[in-house]
């Protein structure tokens, strides 16, 4: 299947079919999810309306983490199988992933400040999300850090793979630190029990943001492929 999809033209054609469905799911998910999340769903009996931040924070965190893993996987494909579209996919994933990592950190802080009385705490999850964000920045800096753009592709791919291995280790080390420093027990990994009325806005926002993310990746891949094609044609023209 991957050989089949490796052909850029074939990929472009298949990608065309996914664009409109993704646009619709993204738009519908975001609109309905926003209405459900901000207006129609009830406030939490403990957290009040602050719980509404959960509907943007949790999907963002999922997207940050999953896009990071996708980046690692695409990089693996690029290095090991030299899959031509893999590098394009990685470059398409990175900016969106970095953005969602940033949003996770910010919405998490905004949620934590009124509810748990602190903007930030250095526990395993928050710290590894921060490191994940740093990693995305480092990846983008490396991939774009050479005078010739293609030169950065493989170093960045190596970095991405090392980064994926490193993240669980970072989380473990910070959790290890915290077992000895007795942090506030409020941030248990169990978290809060979710009322069924809250599942709808959460699910809808999830679907909307996930579709949006995939749409952005595909559109950006088409953008990068098209730019490469245009540049090649311009070179040919200049040569003739």
């Amino acid at each position: 299947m991957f050989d089949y999809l490796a052909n850029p033209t074939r990929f472009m054609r298949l990608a065309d079919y996914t664009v409109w469905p993704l646009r619709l799911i993204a738009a519908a998910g975001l609109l309905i999810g926003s209405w459900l999340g901000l207006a129609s769903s009830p406030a939490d009996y403990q957290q009040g309306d602050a719980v509404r931040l959960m509907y943007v924070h949790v999907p963002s965190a999922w997207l940050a983490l999953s896009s990071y893993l996708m980046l690692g996987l695409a990089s693996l494909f690029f290095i090991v199988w030299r899959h031509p579209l893999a590098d394009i996919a990685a470059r398409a994933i990175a900016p969106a992933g970095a953005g969602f990592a940033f949003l996770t950190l910010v919405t998490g802080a905004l949620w934590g400040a009124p509810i748990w009385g602190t903007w930030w705490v250095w526990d395993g999850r928050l710290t590894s999300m921060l490191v994940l964000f740093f990693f995305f920045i480092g990846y983008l800096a490396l991939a774009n850090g050479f005078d010739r753009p293609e030169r950065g592709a493989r170093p960045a791919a190596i970095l991405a793979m090392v980064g994926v291995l490193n993240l669980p280790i970072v989380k473990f080390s910070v959790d290890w630190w915290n077992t000895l420093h007795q942090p506030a027990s409020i941030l248990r990994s169990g978290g809060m029990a979710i009322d069924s009325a809250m599942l709808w806005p959460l699910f809808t926002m999830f679907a909307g943001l996930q579709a949006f993310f995939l749409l952005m990746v595909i559109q950006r891949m088409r953008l990068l492929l098209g730019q490469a094609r245009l540049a090649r044609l311009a070179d040919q023209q200049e040569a003739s």
Partner: protein
Amino acid sequence: MAGFFAMGGYGAFVWTGWGLTLVFVLLLWLHTETRLAKLQSQLQSQAENGKTDAKNLPEA
């Protein structure tokens, strides 16, 4: 209606968080789709005229 904006006293937090998220989504969406549309029209005109405007190549 005032309650909607006040968000039970948490208005500043909720609206900043949601606002940043939706603004990010909107801007990224517009940015990507318009660039792609422009690129596609350039490719289209290239196919029709056989000429590429080498000075106006789009940036990533």
